[in-house]
């Protein structure tokens, strides 16, 4: 057994033991799915774009993945406050391995969370292209790794949970709302269009929507390319920042 594996395993054990966390992190996406999905459904249909549930489902799956992975990354702060981080920081393995194990663990959880939400969307009437599920899983995994690594990178710079609200309100929420998870990216005002193009989650949502429903704004190749590159960069930056943590 090695360090990456045991770090991964730890993240999973913690997650599956915390039923409150699993249920809690389904609540919010579920609310969005039902309230917005059915609330805006009639207007969306009148506008001539068809079934809104069909449109919003990949966005809500991305939302679940986004929140779960950012939280998994931010968990570094918990571990720092409760001492466990030190135990891993002085271990005779490189901090890159520690960071990678954590990130993969968090990403696995996020993908799992995405699958649960996916199952729920099926219940409320989402009808995806079943043959494209493997490709959708790859997108889900990329989004997960990217945002877990991003969460880890941010957490490495913070001492305590004080900054957490700021991250939620000024980073995570905008990333979600301006990603095209809830509305089509076509025909937006120029300023908003530019912001959505900078938002990494836009490419994740678009990739998931493209594979599951065939509807894409940027094109799957573009989505995949952007996500792969961003994930690579974030892993490098994240592991650098993680390796500089002092306790």
């Amino acid at each position: 057994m090695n360090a990456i594996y045991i770090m991964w395993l730890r993240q999973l054990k913690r997650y599956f033991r915390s039923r409150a966390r699993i249920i809690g992190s389904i609540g919010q996406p579920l609310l969005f799915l039902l309230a917005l999905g059915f609330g805006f459904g009639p207007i969306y249909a009148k506008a001539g774009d068809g079934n809104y549930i069909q449109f919003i489902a990949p966005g809500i799956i991305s939302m679940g993945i986004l929140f779960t992975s950012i939280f998994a990354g931010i968990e570094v702060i918990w571990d720092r406050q409760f001492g466990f981080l030190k135990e891993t920081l002085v271990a005779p393995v490189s901090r890159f391995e520690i960071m990678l194990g954590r990130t993969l663990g968090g990403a696995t959880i996020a993908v799992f969370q995405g699958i649960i939400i996916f199952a729920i969307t099926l219940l409320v009437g989402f009808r995806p292209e079943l043959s494209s599920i493997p490709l959708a899983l790859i997108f889900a995994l990329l989004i997960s790794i990217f945002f877990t690594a991003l969460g880890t990178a941010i957490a490495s710079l913070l001492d305590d949970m004080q900054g957490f609200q700021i991250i939620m309100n000024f980073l995570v929420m905008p990333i979600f709302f301006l990603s095209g998870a809830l509305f089509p990216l076509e025909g937006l005002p120029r300023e908003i269009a530019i912001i959505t193009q900078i938002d990494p989650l836009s490419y994740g949502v678009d990739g998931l929507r493209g594979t599951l429903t065939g509807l894409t704004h940027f094109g799957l190749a573009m989505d995949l390319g952007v996500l792969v590159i961003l994930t690579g960069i974030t892993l490098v930056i994240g592991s650098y920042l993680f390796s500089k943590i002092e306790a």
Partner: protein
Amino acid sequence: MFAIEVTNLTKKFKEFTAVENISFKVKQGSIFAFLGPNGAGKSTTIKMLTTLLNPTHGQVQLNDFDVTKDPNEVRKNFGIVFQDPSVDDELTAYENMDFHGVLYKVPDNQRPTRIEQLLRLVELWDRKDDLVKHFSGGMKRRLEIARGLLHHPKILFLDEPTIGLDPQTRNHMWSYITKLNKEEGTTIFFTTHYMEEAERVAQEIAIIDHGKIVAQGTSTELQEKTNAKTLEEAFISLTGQQIRPEDATPMDNLRMSRKMFRR
């Protein structure tokens, strides 16, 4: 040969100087006690010695590896029992041990036997499958000690290891540690507030106060120097009677808020 060589080590946090220009050497295979009142700089020093904090000035070498230049090599040379809790609440006692064993590269075939031996030593074997969050403070402390002893490092740091332990466990722990020191030549570096522990096991003692080392030598030497009958008297005459204030850290505040959050 020296296991630890500290030269002109200084640590400043903004205006505050926690450790000021200290130097000392610890012989390989010896037991070294690092004493001082609360807030004297003991833990800060240990953090710098174990790559958790970067020194502001000065040098630290562990088995000839520099802590700032070669942290990965340094980390292969030591083990540590921290002063504050560092076990994972959401894992069982056994999982905490196993996790440590894998991370610290205890061979797969030795791990289960050593875990059992140590959990029995601290009398937690029958609780091995319980989640640590259900443990009392003392039990967590015992687990922490067992975990720190799981891999056999060349240098072992113990930061107030016996705090909150009953005399029985304390005795078991010290006999295990002195045995480790004799049989495997492990260098032991520890801090404590129990002077009789230092007197009994340490070959060399350094006393730190206000970030500076105020005295160093064997227990007898320190007593002779201060005309004291015991190490405790010597300690008090060197560091004064005053009780040291300690501020709440962000960590204490967070512990509070997590307790409330959990309800």
